[in-house]
């Protein structure tokens, strides 16, 4: 049994005789332990709850909180709250997607970066703001993106 499968099984064992009303708590638990919802985990949950996998995927994609890709070493959160929006977070996001060559919700091929959009980080005074593994970068603009990510890449070398 693979490492991931063991974790999935351990989590499911904590929900014996669960019905479909336990779906979201189980998914949250999975994501907490795995960092994301793997295909394997969704299939196992579907067997456990006797629910089609497509239904579970449908529910999980409805909520913003679930991700389906393994997070990268550096998890990038781009704030798209009102203040950040007004100060141009949409173009910042575009620039980051271009720089990392991934779309929101995805992880780069080298597993270094993953990208997520969040509603508001609560740091409106620093807008537009992005957070990388909890490190805040304030008043970012399209021109500063390249430098920020260069910096993280350099740490790896």
């Amino acid at each position: 049994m693979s490492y991931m499968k063991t974790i999935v099984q351990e989590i499911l064992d904590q929900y014996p005789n669960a019905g479909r009303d336990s779906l979201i708590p189980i998914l949250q638990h999975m994501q907490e332990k795995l960092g994301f919802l793997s295909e394997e985990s969704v299939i196992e949950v579907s067997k456990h709850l006797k629910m089609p996998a497509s239904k579970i995927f449908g529910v999980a994609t409805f909520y913003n909180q679930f991700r389906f890709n393994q997070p990268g070493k550096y998890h990038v959160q781009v704030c798209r709250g009102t203040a950040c929006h007004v100060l141009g977070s949409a173009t910042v996001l575009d620039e980051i997607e271009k720089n990392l060559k991934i779309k929101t919700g995805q992880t780069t091929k080298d597993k270094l970066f993953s990208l997520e959009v969040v509603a508001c980080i609560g740091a409106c005074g620093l807008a537009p703001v992005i957070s990388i593994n909890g490190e805040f970068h304030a008043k970012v603009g399209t021109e500063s993106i390249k430098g920020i990510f260069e910096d993280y890449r350099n740490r790896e070398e």
Partner: protein
Amino acid sequence: MNLTIEVNNNIITANQGDTILDALSQNGMTVPTLCHMKGLFPTGACRMCVVEVEGRRNLVTACSEPVLDGMKIKTHSARVIESRKTIVELLLSNHPDDCLYCERNGSCELQDLSEDLHIRERRISGQKNKYKLDVSSASIVRDPAKCILCGRCVRVCEEIEGVSAIEFVGRGSKTFIDTSFNHGLNLSTCVNCGQCIMVCPTGALKEKDHISEIKDMLAEPEKTVVVQYAPSISVSLAEEFGLPSGQNMIGLMNAALRRMGFNYVFDTSFSADLTIMEEASELVHRVQNGGKLPMITSCCPGWVKYAEEFQHDMIENLSSCKSPQQMMGAIIKSYFAETENIAPENIYSVSIMPCTAKKFEQQREEMIQNGISDVDAVLTTRELARMIRLYGIDITKMEPELADSPLGTRSSAGKIFGTSGGVMEAAIRSAHYFITGKEMVKFQVKGVRGLEGRKEAKVNIGEMEVGVVVVSGLKNAEILMEEIRNGRNDIHFIEVMACPGGCINGGGQPIGTDDEAIKARMLSLYDIDEKDAIKMSHKNPYIKELYDKFLGKPLGHKSHELLHTHYQKRDIN
């Protein structure tokens, strides 16, 4: 209890518990609907059916609102019409607008609605959806850009078929319908039954096209192009040409197929007879030798894939017989090739089926021997009609012709395969003869006839009472399998068809097939059965000849090689 309601200033009566929509249709009135599906619980999602009810501030959905005594309803007030019009305008705002190139041009509900509501200008323009076409499946092509999210495909897949291959994914304006983890349909649990196509109001779902390849093959001089058609095709084609439902088009169809250039025209009902010879023998063998019971039919490729995925502990119960389509294909490329002295690789074998899953079945690796597949291409009833029009044939003006001999001659038992219960009835007729050595006095088995999702009967064969169950719609099959798992043991033989009512309501049938049409097709098949001289598969003289000259005996060595197969568990993802 009867209620009195007022609709557009007319007094009508309605039954307690009915919805407004029920009450209207019982009185010959209609309101447009989109997400509504007869027989399923209303969702009220599309809001096309809104009506004005006196005393209510908001418009109410007729499909989900129960009638109340004294209710005053306006179905076509200015406010209602405006509201419906806006809904359609919004649906059109992000629609691709490529009607001229669309499969469903002329049979599209969105087109009809915008025509009925007299929409003549684009008042609202939105961002067009950009989605990839899903062409991964052997049977079904999905184009989410044309989808209007009515949800009928999702519901039929879940509630009728119990498969749930597709679901609403995402949220808000980004919602679309997709499989689990956005895989192609080919990697999903989809059983290819095509019922989603039958309920889709637009061109978002359609069958995979095989016409282009067939067209090329018909023009290829060294190819012998052979065609077979399923039992239900001749009684389902009529509507495509504006003729009454259920009209038997067999003679006209034979003529049209020859005009298109098919070299030989065969009837799958012949191989349905052959299936019965093998399947009834298998049943008798299992009953007499303590084999695995209940035996379950394996003619329906939708059911077979479903069983492999969801009921794999029952695979041993499935008959090992190939379906009539595959049996005919195998016989064409062996017996027929031999007698006509044509190399099997120079035969291009086409089948016309009421079914999209047959396109998948034809490509299964079990159905290909030494690089030669039993059947090369599969057309649905819709594609056949399209091809007849493409070749400029006025089918109504044809002189009826007969199919080619010997693979075009059938008993009427093979013909009734097209309706739910038909395989069962045909098998009982022959099993009776195999066990007792005598023909049944009354050939009809009334208990297995009709369009209900589940039919049960007890049939006396000699001294034995045989328990038979016929189910259609895979949800019904799921329930039955669960009963058997829980210990039910009075059943010997089960027929399962994925589509409700059987092949006459298959996923490849004309768009717009309704209850009336299905019933007319069923009655037409039983009428043929009533009038035909040969009513038993084992009495078909050409079947006897095939065994004498080529196959030997049912379940013999050659049969096993050509006519039987095996199935195995599939992982669900």
